[in-house]
């Protein structure tokens, strides 16, 4: 038995036989064929090339219609490679002269070309070309192996995938019924692969380091995605222990799967809209898969992070369009403008001197209001996207009315520019503000007059209300969504919104924890926005609630004196309303 530790990225325990993939996802052995098989091998090769070319052409048309011909053209070039005389000649030689299998010939020919590129020494200039060639190789191999052995598509029995790395699209294509879990040598917590695994509910551990040499396909393995553990060849008692943990979780998620397509309504018929919080465009599918009514929080920081230059208006626009298209008609997409601290920003915008207290410094909308070109570029893209769906714009970290007015003023100015330029947008695009600074919560009644909706960002609201950084373990106990001060602020905000007939939503982590669902409904919330992963559990709770009962719970909680009292009270209520939910991951 070998126990390995990596980065936990998607919770859950899985036990099953290993399927070991190599770096390219498919292990291609150097195999030779008999002389009389050569013609058959050539025929197989050409069938696969034709199918792959057809597919590349389809991708070209698809991308052209979605993003424009300049992007489609990339795949047109892919399609041409399948007819490239030198590529075909080298494949022909490898099969006819060397008698290699078609699969190995493709793999070898691509590697030879890549090696030649790389030997030319224009490394950075050529890096993406190698990626294109590997993409092409995979396409052909997929067709060659398709009818016989496609590791991830034609699985006969469920497996645990062990790989050097998995790309986000490979992860997205994993069949949840056939892949119990995966573990990789590379990868990090914030990779798209990690995010997809979480969205798909596939237990996963990444960044384990070298281990593939210690395991073969078919060996029993255990993945504990919550703890970041991979066990190779487990002992019997370890196996028994993990089986117990797995079964406990399975019985619970079984309930959620059954309820996935049921409406999010209380027993007395109140509709509680459940929206998804997303960070990357890819996560929109995780929302639709779980029946989210829309995207309640589309964070846009990913467009700015990890690069040297600001994203262009087109990059913004395309990222927004992808989510709008995925969500489709009737599902709103609330786009939050840039919410970054100066400390996390590309060099051009970074503060000249490090701030002494970044969380109280130039961050989020404060940064945007100091850099209007940066801000208006994003606003233009959001407005342009509003012509294509139910887009709503939301400003984060607004502390005062004048700040809010400046934001709205800039938005109106951008609208005017677009109108003059004859660019389409929705002139009635709903405008909202996050309520996450206590001053805004206290002034909610005044704020409500100036916007169409509020979204309560509980994470920051808690931090600023209790003046406690939850990552600082010495004061983390002060940070609690159950603190009566936080509950009273939420009540003020909800009441103000209702008085003025404006929408109100909670989009902090609090809304993803079913423990708080009765309380939030009781405080008057009819819309919650949460991580897609938490949608099933929260919906299961909603479907067991009665609004009158929730209102009593809220009234009782508001009268309590401490976070501990509120938490204990809510735990008792949950035990009464939905005993099966107890013991979930929220404590």
């Amino acid at each position, binding site marked *: 038995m070998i126990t390995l530790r990596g980065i936990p990225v998607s919770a859950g325990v899985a036990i099953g036989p290993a399927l070991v993939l190599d770096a390219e996802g498919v292990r291609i052995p150097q195999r030779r064929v008999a002389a009389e098989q050569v013609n058959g091998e050539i025929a197989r090769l050409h069938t696969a090339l034709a199918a792959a070319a057809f597919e590349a052409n389809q991708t070209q048309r698809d991308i052209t219609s979605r993003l424009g011909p300049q992007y489609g053209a990339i795949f047109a*070039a892919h399609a041409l490679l399948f007819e490239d005389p030198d590529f075909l000649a080298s494949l022909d030689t490898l099969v006819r002269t060397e008698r290699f299998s078609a699969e190995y010939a493709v793999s070898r020919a691509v590697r030879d070309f890549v090696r*030649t590129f790389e030997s030319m020494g224009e490394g950075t*200039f050529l890096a993406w070309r190698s990626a294109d060639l590997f993409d092409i190789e995979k396409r052909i191999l997929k067709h060659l192996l398709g009818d016989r052995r496609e590791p991830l598509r034609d699985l006969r029995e469920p497996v645990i995938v062990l790989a050097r790395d998995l790309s986000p699209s490979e992860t997205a294509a994993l069949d949840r019924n056939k892949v119990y879990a995966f573990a990789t040598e590379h990868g990090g917590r914030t990779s798209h692969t990690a995010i997809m695994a979480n969205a798909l509910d596939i237990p996963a551990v990444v960044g384990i380091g070298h281990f593939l040499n210690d395991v073969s396909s078919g060996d029993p393995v255990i993945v504990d995605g919550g703890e970041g553990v991979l066990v190779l060849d487990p002992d019997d008692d370890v196996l028994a222990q993990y089986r117990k943990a797995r079964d406990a979780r399975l019985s619970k998620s079984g309930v959620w799967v059954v309820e996935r397509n049921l409406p999010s309504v209380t027993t007395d018929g109140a509709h509680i809209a459940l929206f998804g919080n997303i960070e990357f465009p890819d996560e929109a599918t995780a929302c639709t898969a779980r029946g989210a009514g829309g995207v309640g929080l589309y964070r846009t920081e990913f467009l700015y992070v990890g690069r040297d230059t600001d994203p262009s208006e087109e990059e913004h626009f395309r990222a927004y369009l992808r989510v709008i298209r995925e969500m489709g008609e009737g599902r709103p997409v609330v786009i939050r403008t840039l919410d970054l601290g100066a400390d996390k920003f590309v060099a051009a915008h970074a503060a000249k001197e490090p701030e002494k207290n970044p969380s109280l410094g130039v961050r989020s909308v404060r940064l945007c209001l100091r850099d209007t070109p940066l801000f208006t570029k994003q606003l233009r893209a959001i407005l342009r996207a509003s012509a294509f769906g139910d887009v709503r714009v939301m400003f984060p970290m607004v502390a005062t009315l004048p700040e809010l007015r400046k934001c709205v003023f800039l938005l109106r100015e951008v609208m005017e520019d677009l109108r003059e330029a004859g660019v389409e947008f929705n002139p009635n695009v709903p405008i909202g503000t996050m309520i996450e600074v206590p001053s805004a919560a206290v002034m909610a009644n005044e704020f409500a007059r100036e916007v169409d909706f509020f979204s309560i960002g509980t994470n920051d609201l808690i931090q600023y209300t209790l003046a406690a950084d939850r990552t600082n373990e010495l004061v983390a106990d002060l940070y609690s969504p159950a603190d009566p001060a936080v509950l009273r602020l939420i009540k003020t905000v909800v009441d103000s919104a209702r008085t003025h007939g404006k929408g109100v939503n909670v989009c902090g982590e609090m809304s993803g924890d079913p423990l708080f669902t009765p309380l939030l409904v009781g405080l008057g919330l009819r819309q919650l926005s949460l991580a897609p992963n938490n949608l099933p559990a929260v919906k299961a709770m909603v479907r067991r609630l009665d609004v009158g009962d929730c209102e009593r719970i809220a009234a009782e909680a508001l009268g309590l004196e401490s976070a501990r009292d509120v938490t204990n009270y809510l735990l008792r209520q949950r035990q009464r309303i939905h005993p099966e939910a107890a013991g979930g991951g929220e404590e």
Partner: protein
Amino acid sequence: MDNGNTPLRATVVVRNPKGLHMRAAYAVAKVAARFRSAVTIRKQDRAVNGKSGVSLMTLAAVPGSELVLEVAGEDAAAALPVLAEALAAPSADGLDRLLH
């Protein structure tokens, strides 16, 4: 009398700011494929088949690279100026017009 065995030569500088990247390479290869003549493109001491996009890419012709274009065959005289234009084009867009 030239029967096409003596190649015609031209020196061309890559002006595409992205170099002879994948799309540009295939645009050139597509034009070259329209002629019966053999098309060879050299960069320093490496020579590749001008009708193969993937081989053209292996030249790693960054912007400003000097390429020697060689065309041998019956339609070489017609091919040379068209191919020189394709190789020197500042963008892969619009090269389709050279196909007609």
